[in-house]
């Protein structure tokens, strides 16, 4: 049965949500109802023109310089009010197709996140596109703001299977070179590669004026390492196998993971990149709402 928007926007596939579109709408509308403004407002602003103030406009947008000159109230209009070009960038490497005991693989979880964010942007009449990558960029959909765009994105993602190795850094460099205008790049990946090249690539992306949100998605097992006894682990991308005593290495693994996460958090913070670390055991609506709320608070 082909996967639909409804499939990917159901955060708890089996038990709780009956209609995923209502759920996504609830998230978005509830958020908007509560916050009165898009969370993407106020970044990459560029002044476009003035218009007469009408009751209901946000008084903080009044151009007081014009008032001083004219004694009349005019509102500054920004490009951000009119359009944001967003790109949903999906890691399609083999590791993204992994889950130990969750209902959703990392890839499926990311699709849920992407679907919600895509819906949000289209609802604001912003354009959103899609880029997938593994060792390099693979597929892409140019940004559109029409309502059917989300279906196209999800339809494409539904046909794809994560496989093969990944080269996140190279793919991001490619993306950075591809983008002509400043865009909002929402990167979904497990970042299980050398972190320094990835950060270098992200710096490249930022250097070209793009806004970046990095969703570092890991499986619950990758976060908790709930294994015991002798285990032969196999890397799904390189097929490398390692036999270890899981209990014995657990603390060291978690320490390494913590260092990795902390590295990205610190580097992203200094680069002005939003870093969102999520594990797939967290209901994605909570994860998303939590992130969106924190972002709104900053703006």
């Amino acid at each position, binding site marked *: 049965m082909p996967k639909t928007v409804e499939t990917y926007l159901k955060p708890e596939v089996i038990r709780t949500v009956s209609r995923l579109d209502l759920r996504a709408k609830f998230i978005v509308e509830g958020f908007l109802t509560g916050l009165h403004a898009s969370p993407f407002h106020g970044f990459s602003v560029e002044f476009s023109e003035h218009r007469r103030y009408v009751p209901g406009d946000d008084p903080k947008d009044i151009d007081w310089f014009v008032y001083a000159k004219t004694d009349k109230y005019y509102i500054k209009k920004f490009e951000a009010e009119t359009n944001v070009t967003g790109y949903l960038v999906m890691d399609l490497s083999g590791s993204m197709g992994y889950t130990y005991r969750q209902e959703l693989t990392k890839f499926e979880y990311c699709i849920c996140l992407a679907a919600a964010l895509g819906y949000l942007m289209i609802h604001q009449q912003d354009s959103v596109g899609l880029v997938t990558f593994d060792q390099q960029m693979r597929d892409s959909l140019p940004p559109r703001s029409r309502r059917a765009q989300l279906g196209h994105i999800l339809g494409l993602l539904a046909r794809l299977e994560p496989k093969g190795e990944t080269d996140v850094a190279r793919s991001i460099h490619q993306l950075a070179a591809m983008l002509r205008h400043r865009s909002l790049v929402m990167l979904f990946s497990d970042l299980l590669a050398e972190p320094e090249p990835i950060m270098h690539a992200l710096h490249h992306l930022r250097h070209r004026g793009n806004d970046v949100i990095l969703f570092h998605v890991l499986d619950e097992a*990758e976060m908790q390492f709930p*294994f015991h006894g002798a285990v032969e682990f196999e*890397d799904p991308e390189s097929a490398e196998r390692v036999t270890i005593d899981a*209990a014995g290495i657990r603390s060291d*693994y978690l320490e390494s993971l913590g260092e990795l996460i902390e590295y990205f958090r610190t580097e992203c913070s200094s680069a002005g990149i939003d870093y969102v670390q999520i594990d797939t055991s967290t209901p994605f609506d909570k994860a998303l709402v939590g992130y969106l709320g924190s972002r709104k608070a900053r703006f």
Partner: protein
Amino acid sequence: MGAGLINAGLVAGAVLAAVPIILHLVLRQKPKHLVFPALRLIRLRRRANLKKMRLRQWMLLALRMALIALLALALARPVIQGSSFIRDQEAPVAAVLVFDSSYSMLYQQENKSRLERAQEIGMDLLPKLPDRSEIAVLDSSGSPVVLRADESAARERIEALKPTPTSVPVTDLVPEALKALADSPQLRKELYLFSDLAQGSWPSGRGAEIQQLAEAIDNLAIYVLNVGAKEPHNIAVASLVPSAQVLSRNSALILRVIVEANGTTGGERTVELYLDDGSDHAAPLKRGVENVTLSPGEAREVNFTLRALAGPVHQGFVRIVGGSDPLPFDDQRYFTLEVRPTIRVLLVTSRRGDVLYWEQALAPTQMVRKQRNLYECQVVSPKEFLEATLDRFAVVTLVNVPELPDQAWVRLREYVIQGGGLAVLAGRRLRPAGYNSAAAQDVLPGKLSGDVVFSDPPVYLNPSQFAHPVLAKFRQWEGGDLARLPVYRYLQIALDRENSLVVMAYNDQRPALVERRVGNGRVLLLTTSVSYRPDAQNWSHLPVGGWTFVALADQMTQYLAGSSGQRLNYEAGQTVTLRLDSGQQLADYLLITPEGQEPRRSSGSRASTFVVAGTQAVGHYRVQAGPQAGGFQKGFSINVPRDESRLEPVGRNQLDQLFGEDHYAFAEDTSGLERAIGESRVGREVFPILMVLLVGILAGEQWLANRFYRSENA
């Protein structure tokens, strides 16, 4: 001795220490296969983690293996310092039990003597020896060591133990015991020493020999059991010394008694002197009493003076009374005195004045008047000498006699052979040629030279050794004035080396006083003169030497008369020698001991000396002979050796020097002895230590495992 295992077979259980390894290999699970994308993060830490994990695993494996191995070892009950490698702990042993039965073991504590206590412990020990063990019992009497597998005989022997006044030191018994043990075929040898460790029985000096003998014996265990009293104390008659043991009828005797308090307590005592009246079978009567008060460790001297002793033999004792004493044997000491009639001396001189000083030295006029003279002197001329009956005199002294005919020398020789004493005193009238005849040389110690030595400055007597009976008493006077009285002239003598000896020389090394023994008698020759004239050139100043001259004359005459050096008081174990007088011979005699009368004996010879060896019984002895043997009565006394009163025990370091440190076990009671025997035969079990170690390892394994797993689960 070394180490061993009581249950050696259980050591095989140590192979179970391999079980953890086998379990690990057999039960090792095939690892689960899981896909895990974050392998890179594992790889980053894998090498260090692997090392850490391997170390932990090795530690736990080692602990678990050690646990099993230690448990097996503990169950095998290892022992150290035991002979337990001899499988059968009940194999018979060769055991020598040495009992110190010296008189110090009579010390009473808790109503039993030390010897009784040793006997009790010995009796308890016998049934604990393995069956068919060979046992020998030794005591201080020095009986031979005979190992026999006869417990009842050993028991009887122990029961029959009695104190021995003539005790062989324990250190002399040990080598004999070790030699007997070395010859025994038994695998295990044991030597038990029961003693109060009093120093008298443990003289040093045989440590090297004992250790050498012990090292040559395999599986030897030595046990020293101290049965002595803790902090012994004793008041004793430490010594009793009469001023003379043979004295003349008219002389006085001083008995010097030393009373000693040993240990930590002193006390008051009464010292009593008892003496018989000199007749046979007379009971002693109290003749003196003195009180003494002693502090701990103090010795006091008490003197008793006896006069008008009739003789011929007086026997008595001194004892202390008035307090309780845990060691009674040394509260009394015995003594014997012999009283003789005045010694008759025949002085032969050609001029009365030559003999004046010598005669006065022996029998001072005042003493003769008071009838307190020790000597009775008769002065004759050489011509009268030829008619004199010599048998009536104990000593004949030729004083400055020019010469004598050969028949006179023949008579003198016969007289001396029979036991008489002859003194020849030189002078200016003496003609050396008359003394060098063959007949004279049969008597005299050498040929006189015709040259008179005129010494200027004068020479002096040099009493360098005081071993000779004539000079023995001068030792205590440090020679008196002998070395200060000048001698200006003396005769030279060519000694008959075979028959003579120099009693005293001048400080120019030439002989002054020379002795020769002829038959039963003695001859003394003084090469200078004993005459003195104030207005003349005298040969020496000896005659005016005061008491020194008197003592010299007295000692020379006593010696010639056979009185000096006669000893009548001995310690148990010493050989008694009694000299008979001239005319007395030992043929048949009766010996009366403290234990009673012994059957009449016959020596089978005509000896003039009575010898008794190895006297044991303490007390008075009498020797009586009938008229056919000269009709004499002699006596002597035997006392316990003074060393037996020395109760101070030897220290552990002295025992270490005797046996070697750690080569013997020391105990002070039965339980200590049993423990020592157990440790020696079985060895000191290490089981308790192993169990503590086991618990420690178990706790350590648990703690480590929890720590490792807890950190992994954190």
